[in-house]
């Protein structure tokens, strides 16, 4: 590591750090500056109901996290350690909901759940679990998949019962994955916007929803700013604490792909039943969403679909957003956002894994946007970039930048573990092969990153497609994205707009699924090349 050129780490770290400073820290600072006035904090925090909102946000996030970890455990195990026909499809089925826009998931559960569940906390939690199972499957499944089978065999020959094996060998080695999954799910559910908006109703707002409501409806930007800072404080603590634990818990071991076909009959039965239940669990809400877009009253109808492009609520009265145009806008933004995220995220991951102590600062820094209200990001940008020379508020690219802010942490989190788990001796071996330290370093890292980068690009594009909170602020007439359009349609109570909302959500669902599928294949192809 000492033999790498001195300019390398700064060169890697500077662009992401600069981007973070300009597009995130500065807007945040502007918000905070607005807030730090004598009395205004007390006034905003004293507004009726804030304590209740904060409490609800906390407990629903914890409940969602715990429930997701529990529900996702079995699927993670089966998908990580067994090869079986349809495994790829099942993995995709589990992953798609996570990449779906929160409005789509919210729409699916609006379609699925009975009316008595609408506007309740349990609807929100159920949707959160559905959404985030993929996190558990991937982040817990990743270390589980490379957990050498012989390690558990060794434990068994030492007298460990299956439960003891789980407790003393598997779980400790899964701990980094469990922590990572738990943190991500908590962050996601704490700042959840679309799902809470659609399913929680006016009676169950989280901090995020309340921030948006204050700013976009009440016009109380100062109050929204205070809540944003409060939310950020809570989450910064969570992220810092978890990052500390995760690094301490990371144990480097020579993982080997431990997936195998189920051998015994009982193993096969176990795998089959978990796979079946998981498949049904994942498919049902989305299937219902699609089918509801074809239903009007008690019968089937194509009317919602046929009238989708007209953007009319009633003759002459416009919905205010053209659903089909929003599709084009969303796709454009997604491509740009993915490009930015992968570039910045790749540089950051390389920099963080090479920089040790300074890297940790950038690591935490890049995670902050994840923990910050997406709405806050949008709000901050809106009030910061409104005067020359940074009068970018009306610029088209500000929205994809906002999306990239949210997507880059995911890219980094995907790339970092790959970089960090490159065994030290592989690096050493590369260095002794005669190439310059820089070339060796680059070759080793790039080889391991090729596949994750392709996947990350797809993930970033999917995140951009679905981003709702920040876009709500920056959206301008004529360039609305699909989530905005869907939320507007589903905000109405009439049957046709609802069905149209389900239809548009279906389109977004299919588009996102396609992007993910392509990205996955790209990753697989790369692996075969390597």
């Amino acid at each position, binding site marked *: 590591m000492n033999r790498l050129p001195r300019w390398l780490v700064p060169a890697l770290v500077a662009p992401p750090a600069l981007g973070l400073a300009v597009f995130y820290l500065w807007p945040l600072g502007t918000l905070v500056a607005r807030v730090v006035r004598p009395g205004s904090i007390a006034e905003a925090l004293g507004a009726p109901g804030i304590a209740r909102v904060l409490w609800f946000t906390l407990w629903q996030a914890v409940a969602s996290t715990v429930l997701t970890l529990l529900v996702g455990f079995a699927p993670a195990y089966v998908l990580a350690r067994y090869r079986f026909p349809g495994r790829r499809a099942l993995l995709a089925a589990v992953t798609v909901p996570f990449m779906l826009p929160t409005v789509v998931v919210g729409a699916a559960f609006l379609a699925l759940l009975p009316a008595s569940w609408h506007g309740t906390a349990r609807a929100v939690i159920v949707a959160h679990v559905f959404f985030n199972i993929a996190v558990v499957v991937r982040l817990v499944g990743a270390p589980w998949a490379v957990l050498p089978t012989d390690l558990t065999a060794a434990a068994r020959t030492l007298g460990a019962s299956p439960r003891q094996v789980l407790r003393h060998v598997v779980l400790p080695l899964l701990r980094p994955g469990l922590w990572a999954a738990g943190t991500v799910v908590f962050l996601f559910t704490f700042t959840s916007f679309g799902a809470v908006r659609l399913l929680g109703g006016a009676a169950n707002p989280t901090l995020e929803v309340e921030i948006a409501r204050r*700013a976009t409806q*009440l016009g109380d930007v100062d109050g929204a700013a205070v809540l944003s800072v409060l939310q950020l404080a809570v989450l910064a603590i969570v992220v810092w604490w978890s990052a500390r634990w995760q690094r301490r818990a990371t144990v480097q071991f020579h993982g080997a792909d431990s997936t195998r076909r189920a051998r015994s009959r009982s193993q096969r039965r176990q795998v089959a039943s978990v796979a079946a239940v998981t498949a049904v669990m994942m498919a049902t809400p989305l299937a219902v969403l699609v089918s509801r877009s074809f239903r009007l009253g008690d019968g089937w109808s194509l009317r919602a679909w046929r009238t989708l492009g007209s953007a009319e609520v009633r003759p002459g009265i416009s919905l205010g957003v053209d659903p089909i145009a929003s599709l084009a806008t969303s796709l454009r933004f997604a491509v740009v956002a993915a490009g930015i995220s992968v570039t910045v995220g790749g540089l950051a991951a390389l920099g963080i894994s090479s920089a040790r102590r300074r890297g940790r600062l950038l690591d935490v820094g890049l995670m902050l946007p994840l923990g910050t209200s997406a709405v806050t990001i949008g709000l901050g940008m809106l009030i910061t970039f409104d005067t020359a020379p940074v009068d970018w508020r009306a610029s*088209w690219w500000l929205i994809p930048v906002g999306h990239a802010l949210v997507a880059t942490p995911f890219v980094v989190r995907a790339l970092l573990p790959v970089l960090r788990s490159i065994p030290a001796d592989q690096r050493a071996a590369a260095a002794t092969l005669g190439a310059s330290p820089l070339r060796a370093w680059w070759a080793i890292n790039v080889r391991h990153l090729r596949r994750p*980068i392709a996947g990350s690009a797809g993930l970033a594009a999917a995140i951009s497609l679905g981003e709702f909170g920040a876009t709500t602020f920056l959206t*301008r007439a004529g360039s609305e994205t699909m989530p905005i359009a869907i939320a*507007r349609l589903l905000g*109405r109570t009439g049957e046709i707009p609802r069905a149209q909302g389900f239809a548009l959500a279906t389109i977004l669902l299919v588009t996102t699924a396609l992007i993910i599928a392509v990205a996955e294949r790209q990753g697989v192809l790369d692996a075969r090349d390597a």
Partner: protein
Amino acid sequence: MKHILFTGIAATMLLAACGDDGGSGDTAPAAITLVAYDSFPTKDTPLNEALTEFTAETGIAVSIVTAGDTGTMVTKAALTAGNPEGDVMWGVDNTLLSAATDGKVFDGEPRVVDFGDVCVNYDIAWFSERGIEPPATLDDLLLPDYADLLVVENPTSSSPGLAFLLATIQHSGEDGWQQYWTALRDNGVEVVDSWDIAYYERFSGAGGSEGDKPLVVSYGSSPPAEVVLADPPRTDAPTGVSAATCFRQIEYAGVLRGSPHPDEAAQLMEFLTSERFQRELPLTLFVYPAIASVELPEVFTKFAVIPDDPFVIDPDTIAANRQQWQDQWTEIVLR
């Protein structure tokens, strides 16, 4: 492989950058945008025909952008002040005017374009079928006879919703209105986000609506709309107005500060307050024109209700307390 990927992404980014920049640049000469609330028609009505005439005369094309309910529209305008989404904004009312002026939304003074009264409307047929008298006053709405029948709009997002809230504040006093709303909530009032949803999706008396609520907060001029738009045509109004529940609402329009086309915007403002445009208002937006010289159509004078003594609160009081009232209302009714 990676090179191809990166090149592809870079190329697409460049293409996207060179493409449409999202609506804030117009290539056609002298085209401006009118920002209005979501119930403002964007095409096919006489109002739109009038605008087409304006375009033919002046060469200025007008595109209409609807920005949601009034509360959202005004807040968005305040947030984008100086860099507006359009050139002229229509529909800020007296309840939200302070929000607009505080946010420095307008260039110069906004002008009055119409007025009306926000009142509780009732479905005549629904009540007569059951032999119940429709509610006459605000206090009547608390009676168990009218439980679960009323739909109102959220005063945070909707201006008629806010107007109704102000009416109850004026009625019950600053110390009593919270109890009023607690009682109203307990009596099963339904809250929706915007007037459009309340009237056209939840109200049973609106033409084309599948709603089941016979009481809605709407306008004193809504009954004429039901007569005019009825299909098949009818000669009597299917809905009525509880005149003792009305709040006087005045709507304004103005040039948005920072508009790239201030001259054209000024011309449009002139047109919006001209007789040619104003005479279409009663039967399209179902409001009273600001200009006294416009002759009101017969169906309007016959079926619209103008209360003798609508509730009124002075603008300064509204400006000072609006946010707080909205907050307290949210706490009482929604949480």
